[in-house]
């Protein structure tokens, strides 16, 4: 009899805990109080905005924060709080953050790990060792991670790789060599596209490698412009890739050093083998939003040595690009736009603001760039995802 009572009692507990995990408001991370920064923020379509702070190089201080929409609280270092026994926490230099099938994928460049987290409560499900990982993309069965693959600045020219990770086993089940220092990556149709920067080379690379998903081999290489970085694929199969541009240091008559851009940090559209430049769009960070727009922030005056941070909205289906100078808006307070994310439902714009001497900030602006809230983040808040 006692045995049955125990069984019934255990099942009751199981049912309650299962109920808890289903209900977001009582998710295990609801115990993390955080700081209330967003009074009046409505829950809306999303429950959390995740923020990955890159941390400083080899300082092991990358952290994962989130803003909880239900109560407007900003929780710092949620990963550390939910996974206290994980030695050395998230690790060093977080470089990408992505959501896929209810799981949060955190790409740790310095530590050489790709962490898989339960997006509901940030608990660690798996850590996959990937050398020098940079950016991540998914199809239905795999994750694809671009990698520098051991290259060092000033060393031998070393080709980068794309690693393929099975979503069933969380193990690497394929790798393919691409160009040097590959960065942004995206899946479209039967191909994986990756932007080669050649950032460690004396002359930067200027190509996008196209990998066939079935054979997992590079099938073609498309020339774009030099020093490519971000890469996204829209729903029509068009590839959008940004360049970090080219610069040179020179000295003026008074002996002051100036960094002159010789090529802009531009945005390029790759449709098949046709490359076109989105003239006068400058990109220091960008995101492709589900509302069918690319949002980017860049310095519109970079070619003249001036300073004019501008928000660009590029409709991927065609139409005119809108550009708004941040200086004329509440977003003038953003010191160093380091990451951007846009809420497709209400148009809110989230900007990661890096401070190179201390912790950064996360800003939330309405689509008209009126301040909604801001929060103190970790070191170099760069990557954001809505859940």
């Amino acid at each position: 009899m006692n045995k049955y009572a125990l069984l019934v009692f255990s099942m009751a507990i199981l049912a309650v805990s299962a109920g808890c995990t289903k209900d977001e408001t009582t998710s295990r991370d609801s115990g993390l109080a955080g700081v209330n920064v967003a009074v009046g923020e409505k829950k809306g379509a999303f429950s959390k905005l995740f923020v990955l702070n890159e941390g400083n190089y080899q300082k092991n201080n990358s952290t994962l924060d989130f803003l909880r929409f239900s109560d407007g609280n900003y929780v710092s270092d949620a990963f550390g709080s939910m996974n206290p026994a994980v030695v050395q926490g998230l690790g060093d230099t977080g470089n990408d953050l992505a959501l896929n099938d209810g799981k949060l994928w955190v790409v740790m460049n310095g530590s050489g790990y790709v962490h898989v987290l339960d997006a509901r409560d940030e608990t660690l499900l798996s850590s996959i060792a990937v050398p020098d990982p940079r950016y991540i993309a998914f199809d239905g069965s795999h994750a694809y991670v671009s990698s520098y693959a051991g290259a060092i600045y000033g060393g031998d020219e070393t080709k980068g790789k794309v690693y393929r990770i099975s979503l069933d086993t969380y193990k690497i089940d394929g790798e393919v060599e691409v160009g040097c220092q590959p960065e942004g990556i995206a899946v479209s149709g039967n191909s994986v596209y990756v932007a080669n920067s050649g950032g460690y080379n004396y002359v930067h690379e200027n190509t996008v490698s196209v990998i066939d998903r079935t054979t997992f081999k590079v099938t073609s290489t498309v020339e774009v412009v030099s020093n490519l970085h971000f890469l996204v694929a829209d729903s029509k199969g068009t590839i959008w890739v940004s360049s970090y541009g080219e610069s040179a240091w020179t000295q003026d008559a008074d002996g002051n050093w100036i960094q002159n851009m010789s090529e802009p940090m531009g945005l390029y559209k790759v449709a098949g083998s046709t490359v076109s430049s989105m003239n006068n769009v400058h990109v220091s960070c960008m995101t492709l939003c589900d509302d069918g727009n690319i949002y980017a922030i860049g310095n519109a005056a970079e070619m003249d040595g001036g300073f004019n941070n501008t928000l660009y909205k590029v409709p991927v289906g065609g139409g005119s690009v809108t550009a708004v100078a941040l200086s004329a808006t509440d977003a003038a307070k953003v010191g160093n736009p380091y990451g951007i994310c846009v809420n497709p439902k209400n148009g809110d714009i989230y900007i990661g603001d890096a401070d190179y001497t201390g912790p950064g900030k996360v800003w939330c602006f309405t689509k008209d760039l009126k301040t909604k809230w801001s929060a103190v983040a970790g070191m170099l808040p760069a990557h954001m995802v809505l859940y």
Partner: protein
Amino acid sequence: MTDTLRASVVSSTAGSLLVPQRITSRELKTVTGLSEAVRRFAGVQLRDYGGVGGLRTVNVRSLGSEHTGVFVDGIQVDNAQNMQVDLGRFGLEGLGSVSLFSGQKVSPLQSAKEYSSASALYLDSADPVFRPGKKNNFIFGTGVGSFGTISPRAIWEHEFKGGTALRLTGEEVSSHGRYRFHVKDYRQYPDGSLAGYDTTMTRANCDLSGIRTEARLSSPRSSDSFWNIHAYFYGSGRGLPGPVYKKAGEYPLSSDRQTDRDAFLQGRYVRKIGEDWSLALRAKLSFSHLEYSDFPELVPGGSPARYNYRNHSSYLSAAASRLVWKFRINLAQDLQYDYLDADLRDFVYPGRLSSWSCLSTVFQTGSLDASANLLYLLERDSFLSMGDRSSAKRDALMPSLVVRWKPSGRLAFNGFAKRSFRMPTFNDLYYTTVGSKTLDPEDAVQLDLGAEWTAVETGRNHLAMKADFYRNLLRNKIIAVPTSNQFRWSMYNLGKVSVIGGDLSAEFVTRFQEGEAGAVARYTLQSSRDRSDREALTWNGQIPYIPLHSGSLNLYGSVSGWRADLTLFATGERFTTSANLPAYRLAPWTTLDAAVSKDISLKEGGLSIKARLNNLLNERYEIVDNYPMPGFNFMCGITYSF
């Protein structure tokens, strides 16, 4: 006039208007490295990356290590490349004293450069002493200790006819450098629960092998002139363990290596001319070669990126001194040329011509000494730009005022005001891979008021206290933070720092028939606030790595050739950024070190044995974030001299 000369002969710090903090050769015998001695000084924060081969630099009164000049026999140890002087590269044998001047040293016939740095650390050699009838001294010794460290050394001292003395020193050190450390983090949750991890790791790739040879010739003592010549060579190869961070797989955190070759030849000549004038000439040639190899850890067997840096420096100084009524006038002119050659991509091969001109006056009357000094630094850089040599100028006027009033033999008050500029280093300016090329010199203004009081002075007991309160303002501060490794830095002008500080120390000695016992306590308060950006989170925060409170306590006793020494160091909480949030806090730490030594007199010489036990409490701590320091470790030494 002979006073001036005698002062210079005895040591480069004797006869100074301000009394420095000083560690004598007696105290130096209880430590195994220079940094262990220097960290005892009040107002000093030692930056130590840990281990046998870890870089060790000093930061005095929150101004940064580049503001502290290190002088060997009154001539500065330069490094135009990064202005970091690694205290691990100097030996203790042959040193007479180590002195720290916070503010302005003013002594007769000093060079112009001696007026230029905000603080100055003086390493003064002791001239060889020969027993009556002896012309040669031989000293052989070796140190053995933790981390597989062995350091044999040999010294030969010889007196030539006429009294010229030679000292030849050779020391070798080798060590695997490995030690275990803890990585831990515990979190307290609102419900009171505690969770976290504590794991042990081993520091690897931290071996060191080095050799140091020195030759020093010193003239016989004469009332009219004296000279010395000093040649120094240091060569080493070491692994750079790098910071500790999470890393996947079996790959090492770092396989990077560094080899060094440092050499200098310096000389000093001091002479009395006529009845009124005395003259000092100094010259130095130095060369250093550093090769840094960055190994691709993820590609075992891959070839490293190698970087070579060659620093060349030549220095010439003339100083003249004369007494005019109650004023001593000191005129000094120094010239130096530095050149850096490096095989970096797009390197600009910077050269720097510097001229320091100084007019200094010391006024003496009764119990009052005052000094006014004016230094003009003219600096011209030339470097490659777009294929041509281009130039930059940075000049600075550095005035200082020093007053000392001694109303009684037991009480003295002193004060100084000083403005000094720290020029950007070649690394700050001309690195092509990292760093800003638009840096201004750092501007340091120091104001200080202090008092010294000898409370008890009987034949048996001595109790003295010293207090200094200071206000420092640092503008355009260049902050260097190690990025990928200890050798590569990222630079930024942090802006303004406002320092309010206090250095307090007390020294007690009691002597008895067979020996003596004593205690030295030192406490440092430094409220060093970041005043760079009123809108930033860093506004008014304590600047990185400077504790509000720190101090040391040294207890010692000696009896019939035995000496025991116990030293406690305590450093309060620090932050790695001026945004003083809990996530960026470094825990306070306390270490306890002990040393025991015994001197045995033999018929023909002496034997000295010492054992030093460091970090007796096995404290797990970090001075630099992610560079764990070793736990308990020891070093033993034996020296035989005849």
